[in-house]
């Protein structure tokens, strides 16, 4: 489920980085508050745990085995906010040192696997395992939470990949990044997750959670009493908004362009719109394609050279200021 570098347009990556920065900041503050001073090593070790869990092969009936994404387990063990930070750390480590998932796509991967999986996995589990559940209900709650969470994450990945052809294409209309539209990306991503990875995630999560519960329930995160309230508020808002959303969905699933996206979520993130044209460059207005003639390329290279000299000068001055 890790999106590698090159699959998403720079605009999409920038949007996700912009969206994740406040989430990371807020989650780290929240985690700090709930975990007290213990937070730093606990987050690191929670992330290390997630890393190892993702390495494990889990045997499934039929002699096969598969890997988990682990988001739901970590969220149930650490609480949703700490899990967001811990899973983001895991993903960062995988991207930087082991080449699993890209660096430019890191924020998008964190959104899918750290945010969507932790929040949905944790709250679904909490809602289904309310009160004092027996072992059977606890097992099912963890399984359902993990199954839904991993499929939501997969759906997010599919949506991110599927909008790429619409967002960024060359002058001749060729897709420049992930080439499949939503109508292909969504089924291609969802079928294996609904049928294969979803059950693995569900089974693995349920096994670990109920095992931990039997042996040492002190290990599982117990949120404060009021901690479900924000969830219900959010659900209420969603219920109110759903009819509106349905009204807005005039096009069949899988054929959203940027206009449908506008209709569906009410607005298009600014960055997406800016890069939504035929070009994928970060500064479309700045593009020097107007420069033509035999010297065009040379002039262009010179401009780029001057630009990089400016960058070096800026870094140099910044470095001097930083030191003093």
């Amino acid at each position, binding site marked *: 489920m890790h999106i*590698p*570098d*090159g699959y998403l*347009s720079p605009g999409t990556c920038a949007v996700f980085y912009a969206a994740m920065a406040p989430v990371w900041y807020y989650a*780290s503050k929240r985690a700090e508050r709930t975990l007290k*001073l*213990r937070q*730093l*090593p*606990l987050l*690191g*070790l*929670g*992330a*290390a*745990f997630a*890393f*190892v*869990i993702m*390495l494990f*092969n889990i*045997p*499934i009936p039929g*002699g096969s*085995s598969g890997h988990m994404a682990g988001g739901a387990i970590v969220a149930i063990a650490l609480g949703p906010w700490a899990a967001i930070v811990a899973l983001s*750390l895991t993903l*960062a*480590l995988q991207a*930087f*040192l*082991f*080449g699993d998932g*890209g*660096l*430019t796509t890191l924020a998008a991967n964190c959104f899918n696997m750290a945010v969507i999986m932790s929040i949905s996995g944790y709250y679904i589990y909490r809602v289904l395992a309310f009160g004092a559940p027996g072992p059977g209900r606890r097992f099912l709650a963890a399984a359902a939470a993990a199954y839904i969470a991993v499929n939501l994450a997969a759906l997010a990945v599919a949506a991110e990949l599927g909008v790429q052809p619409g967002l960024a294409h*060359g*002058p001749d209309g060729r897709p420049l990044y992930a*080439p*499949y539209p939503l109508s292909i990306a969504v089924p291609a991503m969802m079928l294996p997750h609904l049928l294969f990875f979803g059950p693995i995630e569900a089974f693995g999560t349920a*096994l*670990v959670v*109920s*095992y*931990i519960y039997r042996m040492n329930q002190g290990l599982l995160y117990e949120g404060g009493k009021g901690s479900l309230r924000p969830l219900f508020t959010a659900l209420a808002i969603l219920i109110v908004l759903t009819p509106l959303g349905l009204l807005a969905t005039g096009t069949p699933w899988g054929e959203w362009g940027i206009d449908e996206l506008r209709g569906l979520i009410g607005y298009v993130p600014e960055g997406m719109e800016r890069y939504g044209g035929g*070009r*994928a*460059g970060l*500064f479309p207005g700045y*593009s*020097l*394609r107007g420069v033509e003639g035999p010297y065009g390329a040379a002039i*262009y290279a010179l401009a*780029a*050279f001057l630009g*990089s*000299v400016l*960058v*070096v000068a800026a*870094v140099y001055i910044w*470095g001097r200021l930083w030191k003093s």
Partner: protein
Amino acid sequence: MKLPEWFKKKDGECQSGRGIKPHGFIERNLARFASIIKEVFTTEEYASRGGLLQRLDGRAKLTGFFLLLAAGAMTGSALFLFGVLVVIAVLASVSRVGIAPVAKRVFPSLVFTFFLVLPVTVNAVTPGKELFGYNGFAVTREGLLTGGFFLLRVVVMLSLTALLALTTRQSDFFKGLGRLIPAFFVTALFFTFRYAVILIKTAEDATMARKSRSIGRAGVTESQSWFASRAALILKRSFSMADEVNMAMISRGFAGKVRTPPAGALGARDYLWIGFSSFVLFLSIGT
């Protein structure tokens, strides 16, 4: 101490069942753990060679690679991407890493992407000028261009991150990153790395212990409950370790904010590197 009777069996006599294959998922797990640990150490070996990229300051190197990645992400020109690929090859050889280790790291994702783009070349997905095919199915020129270009971009981006990982010692990497993003996250990231290595050892030991005891193919249910108990063990160990590490930090004066040594000044080499990579980035904008 009195040993039970069945301990006194004759040497060289095996009573357990025969002809049973070793247990598949255990082997796979062991192979995976071993390969991760091996990767950490081989990477460190390449990163300690005294090549061009290894001598750069961590901050400058990370910044430069981010600029190159941005360039690779933004360009719409295949020629430009080929150019970057050549630059990567040159950098890999002057950094005494060579192309083979980079290729080895890129290979798995490359294969995945290759199979992923295959369908895009056929007319059902990308209509256009049909080159060859039969029975209504055909490979189109546009499809090949789309797929080929996508594959090329992915190769460039993957090679860049591979080269970064192969030429950066882990300590330099974390130090460099610590100057670029908040220290809280970098310290936590370092902990993740440091303790993932230890927890993998725990997982490996647990798996080895199981391997040494298992003879036949255990049932799925039994294997699954084994997995659950090991995962719980690792979680428990990570919690108790987190506690101890925290105490060890507090004991040495940690009070909520990590103080790190000040950064040294960047050298001429580092400025040249940043200049070069921003030049590439600016070039990518117009191509």
